[in-house]
């Protein structure tokens, strides 16, 4: 029996894998790769003549797309395990309109913040409805005529429109909340357990185990000390297979250095009277950035500079972060008991240094004061309030846009805004595991096999000399690529079977060797919900006559002709003597590699005696065969 793993995503940080393990079908994460939005023009809040007049570009709606193939029937998926809120953005595409009827498991912060991210995405797309929608271009013949890179995009037919809030709600209603280290039984066959992964609020790695096999799914983990609970490494030990995804996307950028870079550039811009724009997600690294700035602004003399956080979910995000105390690192947890808010952004808000708004409209426009720092989405620069600020501030070289999210290429994101006078700084902050940390983790955890996306098994193409930027383990990691099915490298050999007490009572063990006893068991194997139980066999029915009864007794498996088990070995010399005693003559014995062959030349019969089998080969003389068999059996014990 082997366990296949289906890879449905080509993006190692936004994984979507399906694991068939024992009799369950488990989907591991369902990330939404939105890099294709970079092919579209930004969605401005106000119609922009500049954007719509760009040659060679056509104004399109904000399509998101689902990176899936018809490799597997999604309705057969039993459960979906979510590891963090970034890896659940495709959930509505899977749970809605596919016939999916299973359960989704995720921690509470994952669900709540995931909802915020989806809500923000839907809001960004829906508030700029477009007059028409084009889809003809997806036809392969037409697509070929489009300018690069659109004409090279693969499987544009799978690109989908963004989901609606209704679909989001419906999808989220299928989620069952779980806590770290909680053991969840799936159909009795498999137990799954989420473990803290240290990357984001509520982010988890998953252990999927049966009685004899253990698969660990490590996705988006961090060993750095940031706000979430630290990563639980110990529970990953003794894994047969460790599936490793979601490593840092920028392995050459050290988060500490990048945070320093972020602060320096921010201060430099603001001191020169410029504004800073930080395109970001409404949750995650922004908490850490605000914390760093909290410590930094006084020392940098920036106390008078307003910080604006603009997102439809800004308020919820800032508040949610403060209430998930049990999911935070130890330092922040202890603050709650003081009681103090775990994150210092509460103080920034109180002192009016940080202000948050749902959108550009309304209060923001009256409070707006420059120079300032604005945190807003979406990091792709294709939709959200960030589009407006890019248009507003792009013309002045005093201003700076600082990219901190690593998901999008900043050069591509900036393409439609060229020519751009504002300064662009790229400080990607990705706290997920780098390759040095992975190698330490693997040394610590020591899985038998490592399975990972193929991108991790070779250095990045742009830095082919950096042998340190790949997973280096023994045995070498097994890799998979998009739309590939991989047989996981373990053979399942054993099943656990329970034995009913009354049946166990009835067993009579015989000691074969000192310390080893054997007993024969006659029982009925009862299998239900992937649990196997040996039950006492039904008593043979009393022959009471009557057709009905008789038929019932015929249904009982044939258990009266139970053959006894044999043990022992046949001493050849004695066996030959016995044969001679019984009238066989002209006996020849040949030694073979496995035992002996006794030839009865007269009877043209051959007896093969091997360690664990004896064969009597004779020509259609059943009488002779039975005689010989009985002679053989005399040397063996029966029980």
């Amino acid at each position, binding site marked *: 029996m082997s366990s296949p793993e289906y890879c449905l995503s080509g993006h190692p940080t936004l994984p979507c894998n399906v694991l068939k393990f024992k009799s369950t079908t488990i989907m591991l994460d369902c990330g939404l790769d939105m890099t294709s939005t970079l092919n579209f023009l930004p969605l401005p809040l106000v119609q922009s003549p500049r954007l719509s007049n760009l040659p060679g570009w056509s104004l399109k709606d904000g399509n998101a797309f689902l990176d899936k193939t018809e490799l597997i029937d999604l309705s057969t998926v039993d459960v979906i395990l979510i590891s963090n809120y970034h890896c659940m953005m495709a959930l509505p595409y899977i749970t809605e309109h596919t016939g999916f009827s299973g359960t989704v498991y995720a921690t509470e912060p994952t669900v709540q913040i995931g909802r915020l991210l989806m809500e923000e995405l839907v809001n960004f797309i829906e508030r700029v409805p477009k007059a028409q929608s084009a889809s003809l271009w997806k036809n392969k013949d037409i697509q070929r005529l489009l300018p690069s890179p659109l004409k090279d995009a693969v499987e544009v037919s799978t690109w989908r429109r963004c989901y609606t809030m209704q679909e989001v709600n419906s999808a989220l209603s299928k989620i069952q909340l779980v806590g770290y280290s909680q053991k969840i039984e799936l159909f009795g066959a498999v137990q799954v357990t989420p473990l803290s992964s240290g990357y984001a609020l509520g982010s988890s790695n998953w252990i999927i185990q049966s009685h004899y096999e253990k698969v660990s799914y490590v996705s988006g983990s961090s060993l750095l000390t940031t706000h979430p609970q630290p990563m639980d490494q110990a529970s990953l030990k003794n894994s047969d297979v460790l599936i490793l995804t979601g490593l840092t996307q920028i392995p050459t950028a050290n988060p500490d250095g990048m945070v*320093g870079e972020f602060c320096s550039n921010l201060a430099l811009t603001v001191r020169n*009277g410029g504004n800073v724009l930080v395109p970001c997600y409404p949750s995650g690294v922004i908490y850490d950035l605000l914390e760093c700035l909290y410590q930094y602004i*006084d020392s940098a003399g920036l106390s008078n500079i307003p910080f604006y956080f603009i997102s439809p979910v800004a308020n919820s995000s800032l508040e949610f972060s403060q209430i998930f105390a049990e999911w935070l690192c130890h330092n922040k947890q202890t603050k709650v008991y003081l009681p103090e808010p775990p994150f210092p952004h509460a103080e920034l808000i109180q002192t009016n240094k940080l202000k948050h708004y749902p959108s550009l409209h309304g209060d923001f426009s009256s409070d707006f004061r420059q120079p300032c720092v604005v945190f807003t989405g979406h990091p792709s620069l294709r939709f959200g309030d960030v589009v407006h600020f890019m248009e507003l501030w792009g013309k002045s070289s005093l201003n700076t846009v600082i990219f901190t999210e690593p998901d999008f290429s900043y050069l591509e994101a900036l393409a439609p805004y060229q020519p751009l006078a504002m300064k662009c700084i790229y400080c990607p902050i990705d706290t997920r595991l780098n390759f040095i940390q992975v190698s330490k983790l693997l040394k610590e955890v020591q899985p038998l096999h490592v399975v990972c996306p193929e991108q991790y098994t070779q250095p990045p193409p742009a830095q082919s000399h950096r042998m340190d930027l790949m997973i280096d383990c023994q045995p070498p990691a097994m890799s998979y690529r998009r739309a590939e099915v991989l047989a996981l490298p373990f053979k399942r050999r054993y099943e656990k079977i329970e034995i009913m007490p009354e049946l166990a009572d009835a067993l009579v063990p015989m000691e074969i060797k000192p310390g080893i006893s054997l007993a024969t068991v006659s029982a009925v194997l009862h299998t239900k919900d992937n649990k196997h139980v040996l039950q006492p066999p039904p008593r043979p029915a009393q022959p009471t006559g009557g057709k009905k009864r008789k038929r019932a007794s015929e249904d009982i498996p044939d258990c009266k002709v139970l053959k006894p088990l044999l043990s022992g070995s046949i001493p050849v010399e004695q066996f030959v003597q016995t044969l001679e005693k019984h009238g066989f003559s002209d006996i020849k014995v040949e030694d073979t590699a496995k035992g002996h062959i006794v030839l009865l030349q007269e009877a043209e019969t051959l007896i093969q005696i091997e360690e664990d089998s004896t064969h009597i080969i004779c020509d259609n003389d059943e009488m002779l065969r039975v005689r010989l068999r009985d002679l053989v059996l005399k040397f063996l014990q029966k029980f």
Partner: protein
Amino acid sequence: MDPECSQLLPALCAVLADPRQPMADDTCLEKLLDWFKTITEAGSSLLLLQGNPCLVELLCHMLKPQDLSSRVLAFSLRLAGVLAAQEDCFQYLQQGELLPKLFGEAGPLGGAAWTSPTVRSGWIQGLRSLAQHPSALHFLADCGAVDTIFSLQEDSSLFVASAAGQLLVHILGLSMPGPAGGPPSLQAGDWPACAQKIVGHIEESLRATATPQITQALNVLTTTFGHCHDPWTQVLWVRLSPLVAGLLEKDPVPAAHSLVDLLLSVARSPGLSSSSCGLWETLARTLSHLSPTQAGPLALGILKLQDCPQALRAQAFAVLLQPLACVLKATAQDPGPSGVLDGIVGDSMTADMLLPSKAACVGLLCRTLAHLELLLPLPQRPCPWPQAPLLGAAVTLLQLCGGSARPTSDAGRHLCGLLLGCVRVQRAALDFLGTLSEGTGPRELVTQVFAVLLEYLRSPDSSPTVLKKAFQATFRWLLSSPKTPGCWDLDPHALLFLRDLLPVLQKRLCSPCWEVRDSGLEFLTQMTRHWGGQAGFRHALLASEVPKLTEQLLRDPESYVRASAVTAMGQLSSQGLCVPAAGPEHPGGQQKSLLAELLHILSTDSEGFPRRAVMQVFTQWLRDSHADVAGDTEQFVAGVLQVASQDLDWEVRAQGLELALVFLEQTLGQPRSHCPCAVTPAVAAPVGPLAQALQPLCRVRLFEFAFRALFDCDRPVAQKSCDLLLFLRAKTASSGSLQESRSSPHVASVEAALQRWQAGDQAQPLGDLEPEVVLAVLRSLDLEGLQGALAESSDHVEKSPQSLLQDMLATVGVLGGNEADCY
């Protein structure tokens, strides 16, 4: 010995001999011993003993079986040694059989006290002091001490073992004939028995298989050749060198570090003519036998030797360069036209040498860079110096550490993996690169140097210490960049570099890490000091935001940064590179002048560093007649001195005196003498009447400041003030034109006030002083006496031997006087 001490000594000896009176403090015994050494060096030990019989009694007391403290026992052994160093005293002690009892089997050597390392150490040091004359040698031979010393070489205490080795060296030197002893014989039979025994022991150890034994023998020899240059040492080397060379046959070479030390010690010894005893051959063989890590120090030592065959020097240099040649080879670079690094490395060497482990690789590279850095400034450095390949190697190492190298070979990639982000190598390579700036290099290599420096200055991953070194190296390279003839400005390439550098500096000045901001400011100060007057530099700097950011850093929360910002702003302002403060802090508000800002820091900053920096800037400004100061110098000086006099930090007050001195010199029109402390009495009279000249000093209340400082509780301030006033008195001495008003009531009141000040009550101000009164007070003050008192160390009263003895007795309560303190 003075009578007071003689009186106290018996009581002290009794205390020491009494096991119930523990000596709490070891240092007292050390001081006591030092005192005895001083006495015996100055006079006869015999007289000392005869005059103070309690000392012999103390020594005799040590022989009684009792529970004595090991410290007192060790002290007595050492004291006996000190006393017996003089031959007559030795004989005196021998009469009583005291010495054999103390140092022989009958003494502590055989007893339980011997388990204490302190006692063993005291025994060795006692013998070391004692062994000064031929009688001592006989004594050592008679009591079998040498064998004990041999065994102590393996002592578990490192101090004891090391002292035992040194004692052997000393005894060997003592037993061998001195320089005038005639030509030594090669025949061992002709050597004194004691020397034969020691040399035999060394030979035996060198033949041993255990490394510790070999190490001991090598260490003894190293010390011998290092300290003694008599002719016999050459005979000794000729006799032992085959055994030493024999060590090279073993694999691995045992005790390699000690072997290197010995060979270098022999090579440096003026008593040996190196060529005659095969030393060069041994050195060459050793170089080729040792591992690169072990051979490095030997190679450096050989290259530092004054006279040494050219071939050996070349070999040593090749060994030293080997690791860097490996780096160049692994990254597939041309080892350079000079060919010095060419052919050093065989194919197999590369991988074996550098790649076994990260720690080994990093250690070897750092040591190599440090060795080369030491070698570079020496006159005997190898010639031709492979400047270009070394530059290439330093740049490559930095690129490997920074991740910007793109090696193509497997070895290169592996090396890259080992060195990536390694701060130690980065620091060492940047230091080395900075040192290399003293030479030149081909244009494209220099371009690479600037590129890699810029890469480091830019990289967000550069640690603060690495960044500091990168700044330092950058400055050195800018200094060395070729000058346009007749112009001190930076050359065009350096100016181009500067254009890239300033944005980086801007960013670094905004770094969240204060160390980075600080080193950025220091770098700016250095650059401004050198090129602040040059058009190209001025233009580039004024076009950047750097001056404005520097001004903002005056309000940095970190005091070190504020201090560096003060210095930088002072420098910028001196060069006219300051821009008016404008920023978010003062939107449209009243802009303060830099002078006002610095005065504000001086009077309000809670930390000393920024205030000290302000004082230094002000002193410099006054010296340079800075425009802000020159306008109204008197008001400036008066203001600064008033604030400085109330400062709690003595360095600020001392710096205030420095400023006062500058003003004084300017006012009196006398060019500054080289040393401000030097009093130059016979100076020419000041220009114009003295009273007139002193008026400005009175107006800025310089004298009140100086007099107050004279009685400052911090000695350096008082000393400085004393020097200043002596200087002033000397200047005014020759001028008799001023009417002295010694008897005026004003003078009396000032003198009275000063007396109160001296007593600690400095509340009362002196008020306005007239020049005449000042001069009168100056002459009445015993400045020389004060200067003498201040020059004494603060514990000069307590340092006398009498005080030591009293203290020791007081601690055990023998002196009755202190009883009152005891409850």
